[in-house]
């Protein structure tokens, strides 16, 4: 599948975490500038776990013990080009730090000027944030030495039981040759289809393959499609609000059977078509939008607008869904 362009997209969401009895206590202690480990047999695990990783035995919050605050670097790696997701905005080290009194290591950042300042076995202590919420980033980073830095203020008034986790991922999607050709056709006011040479099913132009015959489709399979069609089925969505939701009012999505073909475009938006008027049999035409071209995007289908032609009254239209 030849590609010559990519489109970047980011999705993000503010997840929540319920911490449970052990991690909740650990996070609460962080607000108090303390580290907790948990006793499991002869060992003290830090960060504490709810279950022994070797035996799967239940561990009890009654066996939490204070460790640190200083510790020893067991291993480290240098981050020379931090991203926005990293804890520090300048080069730093990630290190496995065994806090004093613990038998296992905690992963955290060490803030030093260069990798020359790091060594396995070096002693480090936490640099606390002034405002702590019960999150691992309450420790800004560890710094060389025995003495904790920063901090101040009071711990959490109530035990910490929940944690916010703002996740984001940026990814690039390749724009395929077929998609670019479909866009180019759209720009000329044409709608491109691809016909499978084996089964003769026709798909909307951007698709690069026939899912039935597992055949790649290319320019030699292109056919012209109508920009007009008939609504065969629809759904009216009562929008639920969530971060990133763009809709506040009920909105319609329609299935459109393109004239002169078996091509059905599912879940299509409508334009200038009030939700209460959306119906099976209504005649519609495509509306295009080229506002994203300037920023590297393609020409997009805005949706389908009523043409005003008489409705198609075939009672079986409703079954034309895929």
């Amino acid at each position, binding site marked *: 599948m030849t590609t010559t362009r990519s489109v970047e997209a980011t999705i993000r969401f503010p997840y929540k975490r319920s911490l449970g009895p052990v991690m909740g206590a650990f996070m609460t202690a962080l607000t108090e500038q303390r580290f907790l480990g948990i006793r499991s047999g002869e060992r003290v695990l830090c960060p504490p776990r709810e279950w022994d990783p070797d*035996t*799967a035995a239940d561990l009890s919050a009654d066996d939490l013990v204070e460790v640190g605050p200083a510790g020893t670097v067991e291993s480290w790696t240098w981050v020379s080009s931090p991203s926005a997701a990293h804890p520090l905005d300048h080069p730093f080290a990630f290190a496995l730090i065994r806090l004093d009194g613990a038998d296992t290591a905690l992963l955290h950042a060490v803030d030093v000027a260069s990798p020359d300042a790091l060594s396995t076995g070096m002693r480090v202590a936490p640099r606390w944030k002034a405002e702590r919420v019960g999150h691992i980033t309450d420790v800004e980073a560890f710094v060389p030495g025995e003495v904790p830095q920063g901090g101040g203020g009071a711990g959490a008034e109530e035990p910490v039981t929940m944690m916010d986790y703002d996740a984001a991922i940026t990814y690039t999607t390749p724009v395929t040759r077929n998609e670019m050709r479909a866009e180019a056709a759209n720009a000329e006011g044409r709608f491109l289809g691809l016909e499978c040479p084996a089964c003769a099913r026709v798909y909307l132009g951007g698709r690069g393959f026939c899912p039935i015959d597992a055949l790649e489709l290319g320019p030699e399979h292109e056919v012209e499609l109508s920009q007009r069609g008939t609504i065969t089925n629809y759904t009216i969505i009562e929008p*639920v609000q969530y971060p990133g939701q763009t809709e506040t009012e009920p909105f319609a999505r329609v299935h459109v059977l393109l004239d002169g073909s078996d091509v059905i475009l599912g879940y299509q938006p409508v334009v200038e078509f009030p939700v209460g008027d959306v119906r099976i049999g209504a005649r519609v035409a495509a509306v295009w939008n080229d506002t994203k071209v300037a920023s590297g995007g393609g020409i997009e289908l805005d949706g389908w607008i009523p043409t005003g032609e008489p409705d198609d009254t075939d009672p079986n239209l409703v079954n034309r*869904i895929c």
Partner: protein
Amino acid sequence: MSHQPCAIVGIGQTHHKSRRWDVSLGGLVREAARRALDDAEMDWDDIDAVVIGKAPDLFEGVMKPELYLTDALGATGKPMFRVHTAGSVGGTTGIVASHLVETGRHTRVLAVAYQKQSEGNAQFALGSGKGASLGAGGAFAPFMRSYIQRSGAPLDVGPMVAVKDRLNALKNPYAHLKLENISLETVKASPMMWDPVRYLESCPSSDGACAVVFTDEAGGKAAAAAGRQPAWVLASAVRSEPASFPGRDPVRPQGAIDCAAEIYATVGVSNPREQIDCAELYVPFSWYEPMWLEAHGIADEGAGWRMVESGATALDGDFPVNMSGGVLSSNPIGASGLLRFAEAALQVRGMAGEHQVDGAKVAMAQAYGASAQYFAMWIVANSLDPFGS
């Protein structure tokens, strides 16, 4: 039979709720797994391998949960992997675990499936993180409208399913929704969410987990000898098909028809309504009960709604469906498929409590996912030869 027999000897689940903020994600899956081990009279050391299933990562934002949950499931140093088949994943997870026993690769396998919907937002996740998410109801509404038109079903059939499943849930201590005053009137008075489906004809968002312990023939027979009735996995099948192509019928997907045909053929079922005692079918929206009854050959095409209307699918009917209350009453998405499979096993073990179907010996379970395009099914029975062949 081309493989070794597989028995279910342990089943556990959480109390499903809107928010299980009293436990961590690990604590949630552990709760179900511990109950399954207790039921099997086993401990963590007895398990050879763990199979885990959940809906896609956007739901909780935990990447590679099979690694994150290793400690909670006692899986350190053991084979552990994750199954991905969208909403059908819980069913597929159970099937994959059963395969590990049937092939002889492992003797005792733990399957765990879960969702903690309260940590994220299902509409966000189903919309691939973009605005204007259709949600599952919006995606399935056209399919249900098509079914209603072509079957000529009375419009009360959907609400009847919604009432029936919620009445069953009142008998299931683990069910999420406990709607004491549910009635046709309250269902029909609830807001239209995704025409033709109303709010009370839709599944809830739940936190919950389910776990099942599988073992081999010797293990199953040992459990039986000790007075602990096993459920034998007599057949399982999975199918999938593309979401859209000209000629696809999402109301009667070929994958659904073929998947059911395979499990019936494997067990020697020619008349599922007569030979199978009860079924747990993935019905997240009311109309899916008659749709699946038809697509799985339990009712003739166009006649599924008549089974609902006649009461045949009620707990005291001749073919009870969703005795547990179903997905309409509890929907920890990733777990929902395994909950169907587990309920079928509980029925043939005679351990379903107040929602037990009297004398159930053979039960089927189904889960489906994505755009009604992934299917997982099995048939379980209280013996290896329930029809006395």
